[in-house]
């Protein structure tokens, strides 16, 4: 091809990338505009109680655990899988963390580090066990993770003798549980460390999914597993790792809850699996696999959190809240499907 032709091609590429960026920008702008309208409306409805630093911090803290779990779940769902065990892993990791912390007689930072590793190990091992039958025997992840959901919850009850395990020395965890960065400066309550952890986890996995070879492999495997395998990708390893990531994220969630309540409860995390799947789906990740972003998932979790918060501020009773949430989840997916059809027709 001639030099001019190549130049044209590169121009095309630039234009197309520009168009794509513009499309993305339009989409983001639309999303942001919708969000602003929602926030303003909500603020008016709540007589100004919504848009206060305290309340916003509150919303962020409330979505922390769900958002972190949803980040891991996003990886699994992109491969067209599902992880139902994450709620139970939250409970198990919390109990294990509390037991480990209580058994240590060390300096606070060391206690914290070892407890963190123990919780992560619990989550990652559970995720690995989830993955083995999926990649070796091609069993549906719905079943293997359903089994793990039962097993992990049962283990949490056995290890804790059915009772919450209170931290004997909560000093090592107070900062993470209830502390905030910049507490007291200028009269603000500061940014809770839990929210900072959420931001770090979301950012790290956003980079992994969007910028690394592993992330590309996850998307390729979700889009066409056979093509990915024939391209020389170790699809078993890629798939195994998504369940490990999901289990690990759930364990971080479990640790955060344990720190917040200074106690590891075997019941904690019950029902969280469905909430985090909802956040992922509302965030635009396809259950069919091959498509999804961490940013979308974060906004999905945020939307659900805002709705919960607003309905509380408006004193809407919890039964009605459930109905509203259900409708919103359905609406989000329906709108996404309509958008896809509209784009496909263009």
């Amino acid at each position, binding site marked *: *091809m001639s030099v001019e*032709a*190549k130049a044209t*091609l*590169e121009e*095309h*590429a630039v*234009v*197309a*990338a520009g168009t*794509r960026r513009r499309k993305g920008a339009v989409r983001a702008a639309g999303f942001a505009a919708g969000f602003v309208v929602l926030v303003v409306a909500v603020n008016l409805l709540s007589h100004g109680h919504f848009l206060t630093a305290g309340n916003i911090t509150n919303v962020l803290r409330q979505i922390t655990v769900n958002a972190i779990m949803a980040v891991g779940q996003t990886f699994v769902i992109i491969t067209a899988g599902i992880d139902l065990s994450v709620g139970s892993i939250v409970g198990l990791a919390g109990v294990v963390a509390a037991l480990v912390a209580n058994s240590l007689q060390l300096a606070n930072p060391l206690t914290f580090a070892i407890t963190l590793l123990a919780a992560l190990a619990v989550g990652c091992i559970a995720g690995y066990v989830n993955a083995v039958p999926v990649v070796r025997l091609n069993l549906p992840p719905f079943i293997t993770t359903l089994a793990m959901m039962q097993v992990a919850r049962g283990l949490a009850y056995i290890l804790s003798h059915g009772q919450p395990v209170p931290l004997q020395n909560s000093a090592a965890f107070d900062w993470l549980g209830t502390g905030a960065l910049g507490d007291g400066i200028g009269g603000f309550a500061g940014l809770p460390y839990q929210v900072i952890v959420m931001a770090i986890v979301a950012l790290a996995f956003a*980079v992994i999914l969007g*910028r*690394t*070879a592993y992330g*590309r*492999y996850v*998307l*390729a495997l979700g*889009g*066409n597993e*056979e*093509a*990915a*395998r*024939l*391209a*020389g*990708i*170790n699809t078993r390893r890629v798939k195994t790792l998504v369940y490990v990531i999901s289990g690990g994220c759930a364990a971080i969630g479990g640790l955060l809850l344990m720190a917040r309540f200074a106690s590891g409860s075997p019941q904690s995390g019950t029902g969280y699996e469905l909430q985090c799947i909802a956040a992922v789906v509302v965030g635009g990740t396809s259950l069919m696999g*091959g*498509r999804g972003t961490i940013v979308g998932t974060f906004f999905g979790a945020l939307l659900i959190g805002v709705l919960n918060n607003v309905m509380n501020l408006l004193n809407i009773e919890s039964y009605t809240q459930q109905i509203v949430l259900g409708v919103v989840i359905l609406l989000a997916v329906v709108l996404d499907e309509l958008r896809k059809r509209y784009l496909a027709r263009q």
Partner: protein
Amino acid sequence: MTGIRKSFPGVRALDGVTLDVLAGEVHALVGENGAGKSTLMKILAGAQPADEGSIAIDGNVVAVDNPKAAELLGIGMIYQEFNLVPDLGVIENIVLGVEPRRGIFLDRKAAVARASQVLADLAIVLPLDRPARRLTVAQQQLTEIAKCLTRRARLIVMDEPTAALSEPEIDALFALIAKLKAQGVAFIYISHRLEELPRIADRITVLRDGRAIETHATADLTQDDIVRLMVGRPLDSHFPELPPVAADAPVTLSVRGLAGNGSVAVHGVDFDLRAGEIVGLAGLVGAGRTDIVRAIAGADVQIAGTVTLDGHALHVQSPADAIHAGIVLIPEDRKAQGLVLGMSVRENTTLAHLADFVRRGAIDRAAETAATNQQITELRVRTPSSEQTVRNLSGGNQQKVVLAKWLVGKARVLLFDEPTRGIDVGAKAEIYALMVELVRHGASIVMVSSELPEVLGMSHRVLVVRGGTIAATLARDEATPQRVIAIAAGAAA
């Protein structure tokens, strides 16, 4: 069937086919892969609409818009891949869709009675309650036949019915067909096994390039005549000149005693491939050509044998191992196996060599785009940009993206499986030119193709595959269409 025409994007599959079948006749339909047999039968069965033409039964023009309509008209269809529900028993499969009912409940007694009646009439014995998945191939076929007869089929289409049967089973099948013939049932019998036609067919129609070339009484045709009619055209001349393989060119790939566990079990595959050589694998559908290249590429498991590349024995257990060694597979189904359709041209192009584009842990998109644009330029991929979603490209351009994926690396041996299937003539010529370019630079190619002219026109040597192994090796000047077809169909050695 009169004047049937059918086109797919870029391909005219049927070009005015006329076929008549008499009551109580076995009418054989033969033709090369891609001659249009399957398309014609799908139209007859109502599985696909015809673009033009009509179908008449007993002189009345009928509309066969859907499979149910075909069934009601007495047309029964037995595909090569049976349509049985694996977990249902023989009875349930036979009455599937026409279950006798009593009120809202299934009437099992009536179902058993009806199915037993049909089977008894034909003196067929089948284990009535056994799920279809546990039946032998012959039993499954009998179930399919009984299914057709329960629906009062007057014309039964059978696609390669003897492909998976043993000799005694074939004898039993032919006896059954003779019995049904006597009752006035007509058959369209599609087969690649020319040697069995004199035993079973009354008339033979040869299909070629989407046209019914000639119809004759079986007694008037020898096997040679049939082969001549099937091939019937001079080799297309749009193939590029192949650079000669140097007499002392080293052997690149050496395969010995290879056995694989693909959908067709291949065994005892031996061949050598020299630097700069293109070897074509010819053979009928289901002979195991694809399975041979898949085993070499690690896409299927190698269960025996050795593969040697440049004198080093390889231990290929996965596609990754083969790619690492320099052996790459361009699979036959680009949509299902070659591409991630929802990803961009760039993402597909770099997928197999992504590690080369990683800088400090992150993918270098600029490098990816540069490499992709280079491939787009060299392969003349018609796409608005490297960011275009592959789903939106034409078949030929999609195939070029599959090739681009492998050209980004430095492959020593390329295994092309049906490289030009379903793409237009222009893109075909470009792919042929590319293959020549590759071998000129010392790469070696194994090409599987169902298009005989392509195999003959683009290969230094032709290996004819039959029954999961290589039945014959023909040098370029020995490989006449007649010879290849005769060997592939088992009519000659």
